[in-house]
């Protein structure tokens, strides 16, 4: 039976077991939306295409499946771009489908034409402009394979309107033949035994867990390794949740706003075992000052990450789960050592109690962490609030900290929370945001309410752009420019106008009760905390400094 290209696309998505698409319709993608009418696949209509891309990415990060988003040509496609780039920087598997003008007029600047494959080439793992309807099934199959294997990432498929209308005989390929794509999976046994030997010999080892642990589902192996040899663990921002923050071996997040115990542990260690981490500049600070006394074992699935940012002594390329599993066998059992005593001491120094007379965001996050036992899904926007969330919420599970690490995209948290909530209906999803970021995509509250998604929002309203203000304080001698809003809406009223309950607090004693209301609310909820814009994130490592050199650390 002959079916149209658009029908073939939907059928292929069904065969890839896609359950949900986040998207926004338009002219060039009409045939696809028409075919979607007859499909079991659910479609979530977001309020902008950027929202759709972030939602697909939040969905992917929580579920481990490929997130799918869809938009029309031209402005629809360009609105996806920020979401695609965000997913790329954090290695998140999404497939983005865009409508395109008909092949006969491509290149003539017709209405809503944009070269989206050209535009997204730098930040997609791969992309396709479909030229023949017969290619649709193969391309969909390849796209899902590429997005989800090896180091995951976004794949974009651009579908011209005439191709979507062309009739073809549908046949879904059984096999994929990609000569140029062979994701490396198995770690080299010799390298693994060299690494184990180095671990056995090390006096002051530390494991640095990155987002790769979350991606590979290697949290059990990580825990086993750490416990067997009594190795303290630090995480990168992306590795948050990969190792329970409540574990006695956990030292905290490293980096520019890392916890002092974590930064100090790395700085004095003699062996850094980096697992699924890419030594990003925000994590390492000045490279020469990163573990200056340490040998480095680097385990990663992407060979291009080895030696890119730091020199490594023992590289192992492959699936971190398999490699850790193999390595643990040759790692010797060790009890607590002087090194552990030392690192425990570092930890005690930095977690003091808060008893402030003003509403401290850190206290709000700690209270939230306690009352939710560190078990819910936290999404964040970008800014001070993001750093406080990563530092002070005690994440106990992988895939529960959903934040834009690599690109630092304001506006990510709310749509990502929508995707996250769909991925895990039974868990609570809380977006921690600042008023700057919240205003970028707050329209997605409509998507939440429309789809009965009980997404919670903790909004720190400091009437401005806290983290940039902090940068101006340090780097521009307090010449503050464009970081204070002279107008902010009444967020409580605004939220209520969406039919979402909202509460505003101003004093520290209001925190526990407000958080109880947030947790016990069945539907979505917004808690607005009126906070001071002068509240900085500490510790802070200045540009060009080593992570051991912390202000307020």
């Amino acid at each position, binding site marked *: 039976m002959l079916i149209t290209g658009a029908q073939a696309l939907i059928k292929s998505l069904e065969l890839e077991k896609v359950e949900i698409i986040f998207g926004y319709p338009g002219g060039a993608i009409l045939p696809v939306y028409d075919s979607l009418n007859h499909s079991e696949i659910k479609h979530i209509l977001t309020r902008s295409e950027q929202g759709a891309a972030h939602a697909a990415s939040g969905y992917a990060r929580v579920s481990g499946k490929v997130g799918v988003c869809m938009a029309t040509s031209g402005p629809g496609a360009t609105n996806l771009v920020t979401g695609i780039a965000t997913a790329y920087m954090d290695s998140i598997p999404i497939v983005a489908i865009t409508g395109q003008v008909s092949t006969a007029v491509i290149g003539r600047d017709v209405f809503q034409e944009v070269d989206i*494959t*050209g535009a997204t*080439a*730098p930040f997609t*793992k*791969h992309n396709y*402009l479909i030229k023949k309807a017969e290619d649709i099934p193969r391309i969909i199959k390849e796209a899902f394979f*590429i997005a989800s294997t090896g180091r995951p990432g976004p794949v974009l498929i651009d579908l011209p309107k005439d191709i979507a209308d062309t009739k073809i005989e549908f046949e879904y390929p059984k096999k994929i033949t*990609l*000569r*140029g*794509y062979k994701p490396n999976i198995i770690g080299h046994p010799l390298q693994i035994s060299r690494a184990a030997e180095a671990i056995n010999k090390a006096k002051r080892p530390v494991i640095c867990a990155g987002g790769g642990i979350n991606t590979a589902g290697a949290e059990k192996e990580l825990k086993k390794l750490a416990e067997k040899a009594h190795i303290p663990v630090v995480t990168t921002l992306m590795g948050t949740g990969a190792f329970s923050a409540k574990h006695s071996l956990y030292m905290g997040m490293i980096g520019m706003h890392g916890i002092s115990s974590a930064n100090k542990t790395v700085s004095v260690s003699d062996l850094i075992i980096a697992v699924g981490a890419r030594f990003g500049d925000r994590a390492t600070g000045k490279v020469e000052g990163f573990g200056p006394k340490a040998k480095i074992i680097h385990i990663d699935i*992407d*060979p*291009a990450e*080895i*030696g*890119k940012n730091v020199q490594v002594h023992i590289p192992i390329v492959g699936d971190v789960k398999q490699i850790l599993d193999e390595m643990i066998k040759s790692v010797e059992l060790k009890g607590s050592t002087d090194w552990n005593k030392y690192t425990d001491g570092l930890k005690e120094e930095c977690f003091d109690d808060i008893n402030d007379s003003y509403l401290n965001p850190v206290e709000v996050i700690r209270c939230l962490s306690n009352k939710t036992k560190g078990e819910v899904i936290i999404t964040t926007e970008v800014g001070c609030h993001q750093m406080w969330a990563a530092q002070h919420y005690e994440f106990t599970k992988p895939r529960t900290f959903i934040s834009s690490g690599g690109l630092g995209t304001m506006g990510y948290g709310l749509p990502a929370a929508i995707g996250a909530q769909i991925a895990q209906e039974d868990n609570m999803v809380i977006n921690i945001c600042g008023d700057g970021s919240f205003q970028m995509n707050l329209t997605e509250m409509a998507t939440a309410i429309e789809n009965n998604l009980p997404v919670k929002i903790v909004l720190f309203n400091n009437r401005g752009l806290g983290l940039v203000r902090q940068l101006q304080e340090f780097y521009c001698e307090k010449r503050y420019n464009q970081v204070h809003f002279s107008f902010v809406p009444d967020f409580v009223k605004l939220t209520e106008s969406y039919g979402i309950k909202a509460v505003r607090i101003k004093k520290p004693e209001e925190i526990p009760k407000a958080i109880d209301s947030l947790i016990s609310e069945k539907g979505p909820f917004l808690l607005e905390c009126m906070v001071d814009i002068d509240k900085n994130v500490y510790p802070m490592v200045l540009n060009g400094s080593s992570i051991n050199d912390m202000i307020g650390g």
Partner: protein
Amino acid sequence: MKTTLSVLVENHPGVLSRIAGLFSRRGFNIDSLAVGTTENPDISRMTIVVEGDEYVVEQVKKQLNKLVDVIKVSKISPEDSVTRELILIKVDAEPQVRSEIIHISEIFRANIVDVSRKSMTIELTGDKDKISAFEELLKPFGIKELVRTGVIAVNRGTNTIKIEEED
């Protein structure tokens, strides 16, 4: 330092722009790039001469390998390979200097492919050194135009750069 890479790629539209984009985006410098199909029409072979130290070349190789359309990247070592480039050079050639130009061309085994009243166009194939020497010698006559293909290279002996086909 210059390094020659031989890159086998899928013969798709858009592959060239992906590769060129990768070089500019990551700040790698291309000294020359030549591309054409191979014995297998589905596969093109690019010969890319890269400028940079060992770290840069290693990064170029790895980043190229990450592209789905790139099938294989191999480094070509100068000792074990034959490298060639073709140039077309148009020189001022008034009748009184013609015989001298022809003489130089003969020494270099270059071919004169076009002659007009005032100019000659010469084709020369060779490695970098030979081509530079030739260019130097012709300079005094006045070079009107010079076009080069970019370097191509193959390994010496039975050594080949091929994809390992598997089923």
